């Protein structure tokens, strides 16, 4: 049981490391949001599952933390992505930009 828990913890640590690396290496803010959100969500998930296996009597509280992170983390990154789109210059390498329909131009609400 302990070995499975440690495997989960190490996987979680690896994904946390991946999240940090993604934040550091990606070229523009939207890609950074993507890499950061995905990697840290799975990292948190994995670490919490690992701790849950090691301490089964804590599962209720850990489940609450998992629910909160899985709900709140994507919402936070969406809000942040919208803020970044509205407030800073667009990245140069966009292939297509259909978001311009609602936020583009001067007539933003």
């Amino acid at each position, binding site marked *: 049981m302990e070995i499975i828990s440690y495997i989960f913890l190490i996987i979680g640590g690896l994904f946390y490391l991946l999240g940090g690396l993604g934040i550091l*290496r990606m070229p523009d803010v939207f890609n950074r949001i993507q890499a950061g959100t995905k*990697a840290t*969500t799975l990292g948190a*998930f994995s670490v919490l599952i690992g701790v849950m296996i090691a301490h089964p009597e804590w599962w209720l509280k850990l489940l609450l933390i998992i629910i909160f992170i899985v709900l709140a983390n994507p*919402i936070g990154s969406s809000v942040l992505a*919208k803020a970044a789109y509205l407030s800073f210059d667009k990245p140069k*390498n966009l*292939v297509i930009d*259909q978001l311009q329909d*609602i936020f583009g131009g001067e007539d933003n609400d």
Partner: protein
Amino acid sequence: MKYVATFLVLFVIYILLAGFVIDELILGALIAMILTLIIARYVDYKIDVKLPYRLAVFGFVYIPVFIWQLILSNIDVAKRVLSIQIPLNPGFVKIKTELKGDFAKLILANSITLTPGTLSVDIKGDTLYIHTVDVKGNTAEENKKHISATFEKILGVVFK
């Protein structure tokens, strides 16, 4: 009905925090009842008879698919991050959704954010605006097939 739903949600949250102890259950029920009277106007938790069926579909179909997609997306991120020249073909696309309820759309958007290469930015009406790392199609239908088709099918069953 609204009050029952709010009470249940608050009570479940309290149990998750406090655990199954008889003292805590009594106190939690009391607190949840008082809070329900105060905040039922601000929140809109809904409940109906088919809830167990929905929860079953949610737990046994949606969550495994979701976790699998989450792992796939992380492998995707790892591939991009660890390659020397980061392969990118980014763009903002919009896709239509047929889901009706607000909460269903929220879950769909969250799922899209956590699946490979996509990040939902906003929802207006039934249109989702999405940032993708790798633009595949030109029309809304093509993009939908690549991005959200699986989740729409499952969530369509859950939130009928």
